[in-house]
């Protein structure tokens, strides 16, 4: 069986050899079978593989697109955040400004009020002073009058009455129109 001389010269080992009988090795049938299998299975497989690759490619592309979209959205959001922060800063500044203004306003108002109150106090004081003075005047006058009355009343005895009356009568008698 071992007709191939190379394998006779260089044996693969004891008893190992190369079978070159084409019919016995069934090599034609095997070639046909391999050809058929490669043709059909290979064709289907290549289509399958191509489809798979295409699907993966599409997925990757889609994912990339989505990633870029997400990045864009992220940037937009960042911009918006910056804007909002700026706005917040502005509002805060404005707020402090307003608060200061308000404080000043209030202070001024208080000052004015204080001045007015002071004036009012003075007026009230004056008024009460005048009132007190008036009362004092009245009481002094009334006391003076009372004292005058008393003084009048004190010498008014009967004798004095009689003297006065007599005097007056005397005068009247002397009267001659």
């Amino acid at each position, binding site marked *: *069986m*071992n007709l191939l001389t190379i394998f006779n010269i260089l044996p*693969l080992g*004891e*008893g*190992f*050899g*190369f*079978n*070159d009988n084409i*019919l*016995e*090795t*069934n*090599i*034609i*049938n*095997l070639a*046909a*079978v*391999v050809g*058929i*299998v490669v043709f059909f299975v290979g064709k289907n*497989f290549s289509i*399958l*593989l191509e489809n*798979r*690759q295409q699907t*993966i*490619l599409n997925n*990757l592309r889609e994912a990339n697109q989505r990633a870029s979209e997400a990045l864009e959205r992220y940037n937009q959001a960042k911009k918006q955040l910056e804007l909002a922060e700026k706005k917040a800063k502005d509002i805060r500044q404005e707020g402090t400004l307003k608060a200061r203004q308000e404080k000043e306003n209030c202070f001024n108002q208080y000052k004015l009020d204080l001045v007015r109150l002071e004036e009012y106090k003075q007026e009230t004081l004056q008024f009460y002073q005048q009132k007190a003075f008036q009362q004092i005047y009245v009481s002094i006058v009334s006391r003076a009058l009372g004292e005058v009355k008393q003084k009048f009343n004190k010498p008014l005895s009967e004798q004095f009455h009689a003297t006065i009356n007599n005097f007056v009568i005397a005068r009247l008698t002397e009267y001659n129109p």
Partner: protein
Amino acid sequence: MIEHIFIFNNSTSLSNPVFDISEVAVGQHLYWQIGDYQLHGQVLITSWIVLGGVIIFTLLANSDLKPLPVGLQNFTELVTEFIRDLAKTQIGEEEYLKWVPFLGTIFIFVFVSNWAGALLPWRLIELPNGELAAPTNDINTTVSLALLTSVSYFYAGIRKKGLGYFKRYIQPVVFLLPLNVLEDFSKPLSLSFRLFGNILADELIVGVLVALVPLFVPIPLMLLGVFTSAIQALVFATLAGAYIGESIEDHH
């Protein structure tokens, strides 16, 4: 040529006829002697060739992984996806990922072995005794694969449920215990013999037909053999997955 056919290997000079019968061997083998232990050398050679081919192919395809799979990587990813789908349907959503490597190894080894046996011109190489063929046409290969499956589903079940795994022997009713125990023996037996029988029968048929009509007539049967080889690989992996899934499923 037809040395494949079952023969009684009565070349040994043992006087006891029982030993003669126990020496029933399928075909001729290239025996390698290691101590008192005899190995089927041609099976080991073809297994190594198959394993080497798978390993080299995998290294070639996956050594430079890209986000967009091109060429061989695309192919290996397709195969991986196929095995993952198979594992998912058989084992279930939760635990299938752990068993993808095992099922993938079994499927790829069996598939490549079967197709190598069906498509490669092994007979170009002549051995001192026996001849090269698919590794899966030897009962030792298929039995070892089946026993690996058995160990795997025991491991899966015990890891998931602890000793509670053995409750399934008395479920749904206690008197089914013998049948359930028998099942553990019949599973690897059926797995190994199914694969072995299919592949060996295919090669026998092709061998006989080639001996009778050397040209073109065996081609349809060889094509059928290619088909059944692929199916057998799928069946083996699917059943291994089904057994694992069965052992980790929860009985309610």
